[in-house]
């Protein structure tokens, strides 16, 4: 991702807060400042097979890092899984084996520190979610720190794009103080946004103790707009998508499990999300937040996405969606 080298010597909080001209640009009615962003000519996305949650995800994800040329030496990594609710036999959340595997893989790849953090948008009770999902035990076993982003200390930072019309947002300091953010979502259809993947997953970084449950200002200012502003501001460095068993239909909560059998990875979250959309039969050009994302955040055009691991064609599966989202389907 462009700018990574320049940012490496600054904490994310410093980087974001020192970009003072952003407020001026926002006031001028622009949705983003093109000089602040660089869309690469091409982006690599890896799809790595995982037939079940019994596979060794630490090994799979570490090999994915290698194949994609990702180095984490000395980085303070922040892993952001997707945890919303818990109900037995549902697939709402990023599987704890994938979360723990990603954390171990980051350490193997040289990370100086790995922290897992999430701020669920529905369930305020993090203690309940951690224990019921089994993530608590997984993280304790690996001695990995977990931070409840809903209740973390926060810093108010200027937004780096202005689709919502908001100028600034309070974000958790643990996220801002890391220097390598990995979005670690569960792939799901989403009855409002079209799809939950690495970009929509960033809603969970917005602190509930400031904005409430759900993070309703994000809805009021437009879900797609909020996804764009959060992605532009947080600038996740990498995405790892749990698409081993995904969710179709009335996601992100009430949908049905659908096996896909892979983990998607890449340093361009837009390209990762666009690839996942195509796999589940949705047209990324019709997903409200992906189309503008192609202008400044990453690659959507399939011809500019290099595939590593397995071909996406192997996994293409037409997912059910709620009737209101039928228009998002890929044309045949």
């Amino acid at each position, binding site marked *: 991702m462009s700018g990574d080298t320049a940012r490496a010597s600054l904490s994310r909080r410093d980087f974001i807060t020192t970009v003072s001209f952003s407020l001026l640009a926002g006031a001028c009615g622009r949705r983003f400042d093109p000089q602040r962003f660089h869309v690469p000519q091409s982006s690599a996305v890896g799809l790595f097979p995982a037939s079940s949650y019994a596979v060794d995800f630490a090994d799979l994800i570490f090999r994915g890092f290698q194949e994609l040329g990702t180095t984490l030496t000395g980085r303070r990594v922040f892993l952001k899984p997707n945890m919303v609710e818990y109900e037995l036999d549902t697939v709402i959340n990023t599987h704890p084996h994938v979360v723990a595997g990603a954390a171990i893989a980051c350490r193997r790849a040289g990370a100086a520190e790995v922290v897992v953090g999430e701020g669920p948008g529905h369930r305020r009770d993090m203690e309940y979610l951690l224990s019921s999902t089994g993530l608590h035990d997984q993280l304790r076993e690996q001695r990995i720190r977990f931070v409840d982003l809903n209740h973390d200390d926060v810093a108010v930072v200027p937004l780096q794009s202005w689709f919502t019309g908001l100028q600034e947002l309070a974000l958790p300091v643990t996220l801002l103080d890391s220097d390598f953010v990995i979005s670690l979502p569960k792939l799901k259809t989403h009855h409002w946004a079209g799809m939950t993947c690495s970009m929509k997953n960033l809603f969970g970084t917005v602190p509930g103790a400031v904005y409430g449950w759900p993070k309703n200002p994000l809805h009021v200012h437009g879900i797609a707009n909020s996804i764009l502003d959060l992605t532009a501001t947080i600038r996740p460095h990498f995405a790892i998508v749990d698409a081993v068993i995904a969710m179709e239909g*009335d996601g992100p909560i009430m949908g049905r499990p659908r096996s896909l059998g892979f983990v998607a990875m890449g340093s361009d979250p837009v390209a990762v999300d666009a690839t996942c959309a195509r796999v589940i039969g949705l047209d990324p050009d019709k997903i409200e937040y992906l189309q503008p994302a192609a202008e400044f955040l990453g690659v959507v055009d399939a011809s500019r996405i290099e595939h590593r691991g397995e071909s996406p064609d192997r996994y293409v599966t037409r997912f059910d969606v709620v009737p209101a989202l039928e228009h998002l389907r890929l044309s045949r």
Partner: protein
Amino acid sequence: MATNQTVGGRDPLTTRVDGSRVRSDLQSALLGARNRDGGWGYAPGRHSRIEPTCWAELALGHSQGRPPDVDPIRAWKRQDDWLVDVPGAPPNMAFNALAALTFLQERSTAPLAQPLISRLIQAKGLRYWQSPALGQDNSIQAWPWVDGTASWVEPTAWCLLLLKKVRSQSPRPEAAERIRVGEQFLFDRVCRDGGWNYGNPEVYGQKLWPYVPTTALALLAMQDHRGHPVVIQSLRQLQNDVASERSVVAVALTVVCLRTYGVATAALEQTAIELSAEADPGNLLGTAMMLYALTDTRDHAAFRF
């Protein structure tokens, strides 16, 4: 695992835990985690925030047989009369209601609640278009978490609780309509089998699940309707659901709620004691809530009207 929120910290329990020792430990944990400004963060070493500070003051006050020390809240950062946690971020209505309830605990500090009550009476959630996906009345404007957003169960429950408490002490006529709307909202948002989710009872025809903490809070706000079928059903739902809960926040709120309704809580309190003995010392909100639930000597007067 070190966490801000949850750690299985102590040795596994093999015998019945001593309740008085647990209460003493909870009290020590809170006192030891107090910030220099007199408040508490959500975790030790974190900045002081309204919610854990109010709960900690309520809990310590009751456990030490004195009124809550409201000095830290009295000195809190303000913005147009609202208490604010984070300058530049919007005031949180639920936590302002909790702060007002804390001020109301003592006659001498009750006047400090008045500006907050006035603000909260004026506040209301956005009126929304009717969505066919949601089986609810989006025209009801109860209370949002923050200004400029929709109404939700938790802030509505806190504000309703506050206004009913005020009504029982010194009625404010302008509050009556807001109480009516708040009740209308909670009756509208109740889940099909009783209890409350954080917001919607259903989406696209699929019923959503009630949560223990939001159900306990909503029932506290509706304690003057204990004969209403919705309240009776929700109380039953809460008692069923709490049986499988392992969260200190959920269990603590349920103890407070059930006691308010006159339901026997001895067994649940023993569960609460055992959970507290195992609980994360880094979860200061949970610690304060549990201390309040387990040691309140005035029958949870803060939330009774």
